[in-house]
């Protein structure tokens, strides 16, 4: 009976020693230990445009209007801290008073009530214009190279071209839009991490 009690005590003491040693085992396994610290700096995606509007003035049907200068009219500057890819999209032009719309062409063709917007990247092939559509799309050069701004302060310039719709009607061969209206549209230039 006493022997059994002693056996139990020995087992208990042994178990207690093993448990007490467990936390020390890694320290015993090697002489050096390391602490790895990881952290992330915040990404700042920020671009600025030096033009916020393009006032064309009076427009005639089926006519081409180009910014002046044609290639370096607007400068995009990377004001953030990471490499970004530039994207562009347009929208339909609407009459300021409402009730009359020109839909934005999905290519560079125009029709009655359909206008086209195009951009030209500075120092790209002359007369290489790329259509702006209602779909948010990567801004590219004529050869397909994506426009990227590598870091803070990086810049790219571009110009715009607008083709007005074909006339709403014609009298004696002279085309007209329906009455005089102020038309307005917006181009959105955005940056995403490249």
């Amino acid at each position, binding site marked *: 009976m006493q022997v059994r009690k002693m056996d139990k005590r020995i087992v208990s003491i042994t178990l207690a020693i093993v448990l007490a040693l467990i936390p020390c085992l890694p320290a015993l396994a090697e002489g050096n230990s390391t602490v790895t610290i990881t952290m992330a700096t915040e990404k700042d995606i920020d671009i600025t445009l030096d033009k916020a509007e*393009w006032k064309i003035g009076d427009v005639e049907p089926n006519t081409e209007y180009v910014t002046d200068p044609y290639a370096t009219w*607007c400068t995009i500057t990377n004001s953030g801290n990471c490499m970004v890819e530039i994207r562009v999209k347009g929208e339909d032009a609407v009459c300021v008073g409402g009730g009359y719309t020109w839909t934005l062409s999905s290519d560079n063709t125009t029709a009655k009530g359909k206008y086209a917007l195009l951009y030209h990247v500075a120092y790209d092939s002359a007369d290489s214009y790329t259509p702006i559509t209602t779909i948010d799309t990567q801004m590219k050069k004529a050869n397909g190279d994506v426009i990227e701004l590598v870091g803070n302060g990086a810049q790219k310039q571009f110009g715009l071209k*607008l083709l007005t719709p074909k006339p709403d009607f014609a009298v004696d061969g002279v085309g007209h839009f329906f009455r005089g209206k102020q038309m*307005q549209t917006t181009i959105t230039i955005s940056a995403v991490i490249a």
Partner: protein
Amino acid sequence: MMLPSKLVEQINMRIASIALAIILILIPSLPALAQDSETITITMTTKTVIEIELSPTDWDIGTIRPEEIHESGTFTMTNRGNCDLRALIKGKEAVCVDNPDYKWELSSDGYNDKQIYVLWYETSDCTPGGEGLITTEENVFCSNFGIDGYNPKHFGLKLKAPLADYNGYFYGGGEMKTTITISGVIA
């Protein structure tokens, strides 16, 4: 009233599950927020063209005697502009070409008198149609003058001469001239 602790525990777990679900739903949207946008506003103006073509542009009545009524042939007016219009009409006094001091005033009430003459228009395809008095004030005589360059509107004119100045005659005996003006305003 206190809730049983088991029930409170279940509610807490449900709230935690819902919060987790919301966070999981939001996670896919986070990359889309990682962008910056700037806009360029383009404004342009289409021109307003108001142009009315009238044919013929003169009406030669010939010799006229006191109180006579004369009716013209048909005049045609065509909207050559790019706006839906309301056409306005107005007249003015008639003046003797050789003696500008001799005039016939234009009636404002449809009655003639000595040296007061009357002018009317009549349309068939305008709104409002029918006959109307022409005065020195502008009045709408065709409110549906739309952009339909090849669908012109038509009207006629009627003139009633003044009463005689004396013994059934007018003074002088010369050519009297007046002008009717048709103009358009955007409807």
